[in-house]
């Protein structure tokens, strides 16, 4: 199947590619103005880019999570566990063994997929609340291990420090614009993979499982295989996100992988519309940057965050961009 590129998507793509230029020209404008003693109230380009990188990272995670609750209909409350596996796999390989990011990241993805399958094995027959509880327990378990483990991570609170920047042809990629294109490429690859999967035989099998497991099984869909595939792909994407996060953050601690992150990512796909790729992206774009955009409100910003969520759910209960179901 070919991916059809509409004009809208092409325009969006070009805009997204040119965003760093825009933020840095804002910097130049501020500089030019301050030379003339005018203070322009525009935040710095690097800061805007950092917010964008964070939003893109959440988009990637939301797309990965979306595969399980969105495509196969199983509520996953422990997605952050895979994010953590990816972050610590890449972080430890790079900081302790000095491996290149380009090796560590794929290994992190594979390791994530393995953990996805490991978690999948005992949960294949579970659905609904029971599945959700197991996923929650799983991520909490990983979180506790990382927080307390001494032999591998070497200490309390899971500090892994001085993770080096990825090296590309002798250049260290640590500038914000480099990180921006780095996550943009990962994100586009993820979108392509997830989109292709959704519209393939596999995607339709997942949709069948979501709508009615028994009916799907009676039609000859191998539940074990398709569910395992969904868990593995979803976990691998989460782990890639984790690997990116590790090198972006430089010093990581267990605190970044708390249960709240799982809920936040889940909120993104619920807000955007479960099962929809563009929905996940829009949801992540909003919730992934809202906390920061509301910073001027000071202490009240999470209050406003909550009010916006409630309003959204009041006016669009099925999510911003809900999927059209065929047939």
């Amino acid at each position, binding site marked *: 199947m070919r991916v059809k590129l509409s004009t809208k998507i092409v325009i969006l793509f070009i805009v997204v590619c040119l965003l760093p230029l825009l933020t840095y020209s804002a910097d130049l404008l501020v500089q030019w103005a301050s030379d003339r003693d005018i*203070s322009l*109230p525009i*935040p710095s380009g690097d800061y805007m880019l*950092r917010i964008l990188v964070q939003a893109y990272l959440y988009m990637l995670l939301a797309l990965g999570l979306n595969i399980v609750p969105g495509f196969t209909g199983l509520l996953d409350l422990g997605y952050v566990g895979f994010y953590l596996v990816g972050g610590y796999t890449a972080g430890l390989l790079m900081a302790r063994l000095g491996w290149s990011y380009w090796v560590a990241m794929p290994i992190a993805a594979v390791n994530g997929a393995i953990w996805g399958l490991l978690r999948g094995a005992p949960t294949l027959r579970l659905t609904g609340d029971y599945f959700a509880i197991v996923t929650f327990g799983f991520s909490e378990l990983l979180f506790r291990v990382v927080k307390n483990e001494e032999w591998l991570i070497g200490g*309390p609170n899971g*500090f892994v420090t001085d993770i080096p920047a990825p090296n590309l042809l002798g250049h260290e990629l640590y500038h914000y614009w480099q990180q921006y294109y780095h996550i943009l490429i990962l994100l586009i690859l993820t979108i392509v993979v997830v989109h292709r999967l959704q519209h393939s035989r596999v995607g339709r099998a997942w949709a069948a499982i979501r709508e009615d497991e028994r009916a799907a099984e009676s039609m000859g869909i191998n539940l074990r295989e398709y569910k395992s595939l969904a868990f593995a792909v979803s976990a691998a994407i989460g782990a890639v996100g984790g690997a990116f996060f590790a090198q972006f953050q430089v010093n990581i601690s267990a605190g970044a992988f708390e249960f709240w992150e799982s809920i936040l990512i889940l909120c993104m796909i619920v807000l955007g519309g479960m099962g929809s790729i563009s929905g996940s992206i829009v949801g992540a774009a909003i919730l992934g940057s809202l906390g920061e955009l509301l910073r001027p409100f000071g202490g009240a910003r999470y209050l406003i965050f909550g009010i916006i969520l409630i309003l959204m759910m009041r006016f669009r209960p099925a999510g911003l961009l809900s999927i059209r179901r065929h047939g």
Partner: protein
Amino acid sequence: MKTRANFSTISLVALVVMSFTFMSCEQKVEGIKIAVAGPFTGNIAAFGEMIKRGAELRAKEINAAGGVNGKTLMLVFEDDAGKDKEASLVATRIATNRNILAVVGHFNSSCSLAGKPIYKRAGIVELSPGSTNVRVCEGSDWTFRNLYRDDFQGGFVAKYIKNVLTDIQKIAIFFDNDDYGRGLKDGFTNAAQKLGLDIVATEAYDRDNTDFKAQLTSIKAKNPDLVFISGLYSQAGLIASQAREVGITVQLFGADGVDSPGFLEIAGDAADGTYVSTPFVFELGGSEAQRVAKAFEAEYGVAPDTWAALTYDAVGMIVEAIEKGGENRKAIQKYLASMTTPEKGYEGITGLTYFDKNGDCIKPAYVKVVHDGKFVPAEKQMLDTEM
């Protein structure tokens, strides 16, 4: 569709409002700007509040005395909510704002570590008044702190026991299974073994627990002369009262995590006689510390704590670096990095601060003891910093 129209109007209005506030968040600079970053919201906002007040009080006093090089000192408060992800965003915000000359912060060790690479790349000083994790200052010339590290404090407690509480030989350790409790325990154990103290039991507890009798009973069986509680006040309070219940009557010792009025409230009578170590005691500070404590209380209606005092000093250090070093980021770093001996150190209300090659500071710890339901300075202090 009607709902759809409503929805787009609301989101449009929301967007416009948001972009306005987003844009109006900065004002024209007239004076010297330094940032103060800490957990001003979130579940440890109580610490953030004290940090904010300590910094504000110092800025007010400096400005009343004519400012910095004749210019007004302006503080920019940035909230990291105690989370490392937010800390990196805040750090980027600060580091890329060329008007800000230095940062006092962050409080949590994880936040200081998150900000470290960003401050290092941008070349701006990060001076933490609260991060005690061993790794915070390693590997960056731009990160400093004005209090001791977890391992120093653990070692200090062991040394204090050896030198002051001389009849104690057998020690039991009861530690919080978290970074703070463990770092402290490790420092304590290492030093205690070197000093020839006998550690007869090491038990862990989880911060979510409220019942510690099982571990306490097994500690009692080892018959120690002293129990070192390596954790925070809320659990330490319960541990103290439950220890008395299971029949442990020996000396209790805690570190700065226990140094809180909360400990006295929870433990009640059981707290009496407990020793705690802490980075600073206002009562033992000089006349300047007494004056600041009074001014603080007059301003905010509550007594200042250790963190307020350390932040008060941190702001003062940065200002001294600006006045004596120069009004730019590099000059501030150079000045702080040159403070490597007691003679070149900064004399603040929390004592003399000077740095080692990492930017860690060499500073004494104080000891307090609970007497009649109140913390009072212990009779004997041990203020040398040789380890």
